[in-house]
């Protein structure tokens, strides 16, 4: 999404270029806490100026991975390179990395400007230059008039901006953000998300963001690494992760999804037919699948890619099933329908509310669900 805003910038998808040098190289990194393996043999490349999101549930190892990049934890196995330099044994205060903490971790006994100046003071930056830079940084995060306040005199959003200013003041090449928007309310989150993206573009910093919030990951990142149980299960752009998940875990974790178990009954290079007892119909998909014939697999269907109607569609032989509406959740822009299929399985369908006074579908209506041949995602793992 960055290239859309800056047409003059080179197409920034370095992960597709085999000759590009990654800025961060994580090689077979493992971290154990006692018997618990927090990070299990993770390998990952992150490129300059990326906004990379590590996404996963709590305890999936994403924060541990971030803390290893910052130097607060040492890997038990594997290697970590930042800008080509092996990070083994290099303490946090010597790494070219700054971090923004989930709790913001502002120094409670220092004013806003002293908090922001702290990093520069450690480098013995000359006084005049130091305060000039602090002032400019505070202006950038719109906190110029709060310079002499203490952290407890600020609201949550202001604290978050102080934390951001403090982590950016040393102009790090790499900024690590641990759940940066976690403590903010929804309105503030949205505006801050875009602020973060602007800053990232303006300063050309590489961001690695840890989050459990998929919406945050989707809007912010150039690429997402989905983590589960200490491992990276899929890396890709937000679109790839959402539209082409490679596993049931990712399909289920990102967004909501209807999962139908089934098996292949007919296939060729450019199509596949799957018979599903759960869906109660044959699912036709207009591309080939790399799976052994008659293998048990699942077809994932996003709720918004299913069309719901009271009248039967023209073709009811394939990609069409029926059931009874059990519940409707009206969300304003869309409505969510829970449909009990004739097979007993519950399916979820979302439809945009396009017309204000529509002849809407009601509870206990008998409805048909159908979808396009390109909508189904075949998942073998």
């Amino acid at each position: 999404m960055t290239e859309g805003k800056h047409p003059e910038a080179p197409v920034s998808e370095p992960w597709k270029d085999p000759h590009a040098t990654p800025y961060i190289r994580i090689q077979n990194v493992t971290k154990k806490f006692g018997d618990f393996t927090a990070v299990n043999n993770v390998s990952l490349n992150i490129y300059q100026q990326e906004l990379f999101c590590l996404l996963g549930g709590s305890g999936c190892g994403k924060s541990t991975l971030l803390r290893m990049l910052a130097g607060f934890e040492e890997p038990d196995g594997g290697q970590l390179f930042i800008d080509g330099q092996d990070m083994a044994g290099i303490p946090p205060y010597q790494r070219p990395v700054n971090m923004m903490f989930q709790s913001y971790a502002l120094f409670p006994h220092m004013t806003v400007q002293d908090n922001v100046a702290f990093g520069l003071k450690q480098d013995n930056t000359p006084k005049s230059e130091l305060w000039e830079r602090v002032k400019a940084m505070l202006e950038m995060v719109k906190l110029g008039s709060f310079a002499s306040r203490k952290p407890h005199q600020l609201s949550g959003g202001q604290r978050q901006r102080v934390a951001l200013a403090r982590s950016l003041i040393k102009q790090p090449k790499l900024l690590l953000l641990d759940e940066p928007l976690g403590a903010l309310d929804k309105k503030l989150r949205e505006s801050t998300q875009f602020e973060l993206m602007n800053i990232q573009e303006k300063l050309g910093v590489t961001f690695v963001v840890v989050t459990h919030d998929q919406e945050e990951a989707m809007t912010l990142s150039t690429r997402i690494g989905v983590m589960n149980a200490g491992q990276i299960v899929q890396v890709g752009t937000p679109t790839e992760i959402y539209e082409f998940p490679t596993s049931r875990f990712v399909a289920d974790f990102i967004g909501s999804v209807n999962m139908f178990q089934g098996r292949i009954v007919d296939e060729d290079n450019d199509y596949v037919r799957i018979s599903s007892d759960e869906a109660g119909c044959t699912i036709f998909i207009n591309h080939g699948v790399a799976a052994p014939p008659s293998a048990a697999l699942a077809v994932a269907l996003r709720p918004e890619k299913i069309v719901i109607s009271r009248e039967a569609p023209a073709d009811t032989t394939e990609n069409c099933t029926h059931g009874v509406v059990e519940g409707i959740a009206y969300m304003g822009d869309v409505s969510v329908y829970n449909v009990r299929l004739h097979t007993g399985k519950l399916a979820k369908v979302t439809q945009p509310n396009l017309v204000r006074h529509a002849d809407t579908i009601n509870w206990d209506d008998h409805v048909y669900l159908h979808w396009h041949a390109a909508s189904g995602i075949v998942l073998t793992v």
Partner: protein
Amino acid sequence: MGGANRSPFVTGWMWAGFAFLYIPILSLVIFSFNSNKLVTVWAGFSTKWYVALMQNRQILDAAWLSLKVGLANATIAVILGTLVALCLARFGPFRGRALLSGLATAPLVMPEVITGLSLLLLFVAMEQALGWPAGRGVLTIIIAHATFSMAYVAVVVQSRLTGMDPSIEEAAMDLGAKPAKVFFVITLPIIAPALVSGWLLAFTLSLDDLVIASFVSGPGASTLPMVIYSKVRLGLSPEINALATLLVVIVALGVITAGILMAHQERVRQRDIQLAIAGNK
């Protein structure tokens, strides 16, 4: 507070509680102005016992000694107690952590008689084996007091350290500060309130201690509680009443000052919160 329509029964019990707590102290204050040498028989108002107190070299020397011991003890206890607290709160699990934790807090539950006796035996044995500490006196009292008040400091400071967000220290390190600098510039100022209360606690414990001091003290080194106790055994003297009244006044002044300061801080805090809410637009 809604005190106007509280039932007389509740108010009555409240005053009974106050009376139970403060009448003994009040009677002590009143009898310190008694002109009679017999402590319990009132014979008219007089301040002569205060004058006598100011001329009593033994009591004044003991008070001065107690102050010195208290100051030295509190300072040593704060340094050692903070080190113990840091070990327990920041160094993660290490071999012997449970032992250190147990040993550091043992003096909290150990009867004073046992602490005193064991220290006395140690000092005697050390003098015979090493020749130090030579005899018993101020030094041994300070050492003895520091060993047990250190435990209180450790508990106070450790709870403050545990309550402090560890990522604050990590943030400082992340911004380029070496561990020693992080401690002095970040950790120390944040735990300073705990150090102050630990210091005051250690000072009070030392000023108050009679049992341990009696065990480890030597000739010529009598603390204030020791002198008062020995005087009371020879019969109550109105001078002691005067001394106790002075102590009560000093403590009351301290408590009132602390109360005013805290009320002021609370007002500032409330104003800050208002400010933060106003800025949150």
